[in-house]
């Protein structure tokens, strides 16, 4: 299957060993989009490198950017000022919603529900408009800088966000009317790609895919970064860990993200956007690991600094890469058509897997 296959969400090749229609074994062939993102870091300064990261998980570029900026800030011992932190949280959560919307739309279209896709993109468009108004870009946003944010929020930003979050929960309900009790949807997703919580941890699965298996773990709660500690939100979890559970978890996550944005947008504090720091970023000798809860799972950065303006080594721990590893276990014994569902439910982005 693949690499040119519409349901592989990019260029992923899965070599399936079949017994009739039944999958016995699967082997993923990846690397088609490899651009050497980690190597590029060694020839660029810390700040120059940030836009490159937007090209990894291009659906959730804001998260990539946040994770890296925070990792470098941690190494520098700098904290972004509260105003910047709030803007960051709002943008990241909006980005989470848009990422989940894209996932929902494409996942549904893979399983034959075309309508949902159109609805999802309608809302996603609203979010992208906010991004565009804020920084001029829609996908590869390069929204934050090391030490804070570059841009002040535009006039009418809060109103636009408020309008969006006010209407959005109803929109999620709308998607639910199309899918949640749809017999075909249930037939295609219930009991498909089951993975237990223990196996998921062993395989390093994180994010909604882990929570779908009933493990209540979210880095935003476990190790609050940015200002997530200020907000109230719940971590939805699933029961058995099948495709349907993961679907429910992501839908609920969109509602929770809306809650976070609603709280954050009302109390954006005044103050500067950038922390006081030297213009040349020269972290001390040492290393740091910082991970955040990206829409797809734990996105970690491991940076080794040799005290110069360029990182000695930058390692990205991409959630999709590790999650995809679970595919083999999840597809065993299922039909070929279910493979499509399982690839969809893992919510992978090949740009991030191949880097």
């Amino acid at each position, binding site marked *: 299957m693949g690499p040119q296959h519409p349901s592989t969400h990019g260029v992923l090749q899965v070599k399936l060993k079949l017994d009739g229609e039944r999958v016995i074994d699967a082997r993923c062939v990846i*690397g088609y989009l490899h651009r050497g993102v980690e190597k590029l870091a060694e020839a660029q300064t810390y700040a120059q490198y940030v836009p490159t990261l937007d090209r990894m998980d291009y659906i959730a570029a804001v998260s990539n950017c946040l994770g890296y900026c925070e990792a470098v800030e941690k190494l520098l011992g700098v904290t972004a000022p509260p105003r910047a932190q709030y803007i960051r949280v709002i943008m990241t959560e909006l980005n989470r919603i848009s990422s989940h919307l894209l996932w929902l739309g494409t996942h549904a279209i893979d399983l034959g529900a075309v309508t949902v896709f159109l609805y999802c993109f309608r809302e996603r468009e609203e979010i992208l408009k906010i991004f565009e108004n804020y920084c001029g870009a829609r996908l590869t946003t390069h929204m934050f800088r090391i030490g804070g944010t570059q841009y002040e929020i535009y006039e009418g930003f809060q109103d636009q966000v408020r309008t969006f979050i006010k209407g959005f929960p109803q929109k999620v309900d709308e998607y639910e009317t199309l899918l949640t009790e749809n017999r075909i949807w249930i037939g295609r997703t219930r009991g498909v790609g089951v993975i237990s919580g223990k196996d998921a941890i062993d395989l390093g699965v994180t994010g909604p895919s882990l929570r779908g298996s009933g493990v209540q773990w979210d880095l935003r709660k476990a190790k609050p970064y940015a200002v997530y500690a200020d907000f109230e939100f719940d971590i939805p979890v699933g029961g058995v860990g099948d495709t349907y559970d993961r679907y429910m978890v992501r839908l609920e996550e969109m509602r929770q993200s809306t809650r976070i944005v609603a709280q954050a947008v009302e109390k954006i504090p005044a103050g500067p956007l950038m922390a006081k720091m030297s213009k040349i970023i020269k972290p*001390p000798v040492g290393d740091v690991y910082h991970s955040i809860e990206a829409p797809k799972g734990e996105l970690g950065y491991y940076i080794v600094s040799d005290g110069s303006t360029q990182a000695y*080594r930058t390692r990205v721990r991409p959630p999709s890469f590790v999650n995809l590893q679970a595919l083999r276990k999840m597809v065993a014994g299922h039909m070929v058509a279910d493979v499509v569902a399982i690839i969809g439910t893992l919510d992978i982005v090949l740009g991030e897997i*191949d*880097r």
Partner: protein
Amino acid sequence: MAEEEQKDKQQTEKPAEPPKPPQAAEPKAATPKPPPPPPGAKPAAPSKPKGPAQEPWSSPLVDAIKERFGDQFVKAYSFIGQNQIEVKKDRIVEIMAFLRDNDIVPFNYLADETAVHWPKEEQFEIVYILYSFTKNEHVRVKTRIKEWEEIESVVQVWTTADWLEREVYDMFGVRYANHPDLTRILLPEDWVGHPLRKDYDIRLQDVEWVRKHLGIDSGQKYYVGEARDETTDYITPSD
């Protein structure tokens, strides 16, 4: 036709080629002109606070490791609040299994495994980032191996190490003993060299590969490298 054109171009360009300094020098020149200037934050305090230092870190877990694997333990320290343990590589699987199964802080999740190349010491540093769901704690375990040495795979401890180790092998050429399927993962099977090693120049594209598979000249300036010996796919920029 396009090929010919390319060839022509190459030939015409060739005379100008040699004196070009390797790109590596360029970023250095560019360093003074750096990050997008933070507006508002004018000349902040000349932030040269020597940087945080490593602080010794002790905990019941460290003591337990010391006790069990006495000679294997190198040191434990904490850097900007992140705990790290350095061990020797010989009994790495046992140490990892112990870290996973102990009662003090059971690290049941391998967040990441990666490597750092230190060419001066001819060493690789293998870094394991562990997390404990029950105690909500991270720890980094580091071990050093010589470039030509093997290290035991930890796949038997955490399944997730499978692809992570394949990637380390792909990018650094670190060989893992007892790995179920140690093949390249991101690069094509017949790629020569391991790009994340420090001696693999960023400009070094495998021109042969591009020519062979895509039938074109990549147009990249490259160094003529050759494998040092058969056991290490070692590429040295020789001129």
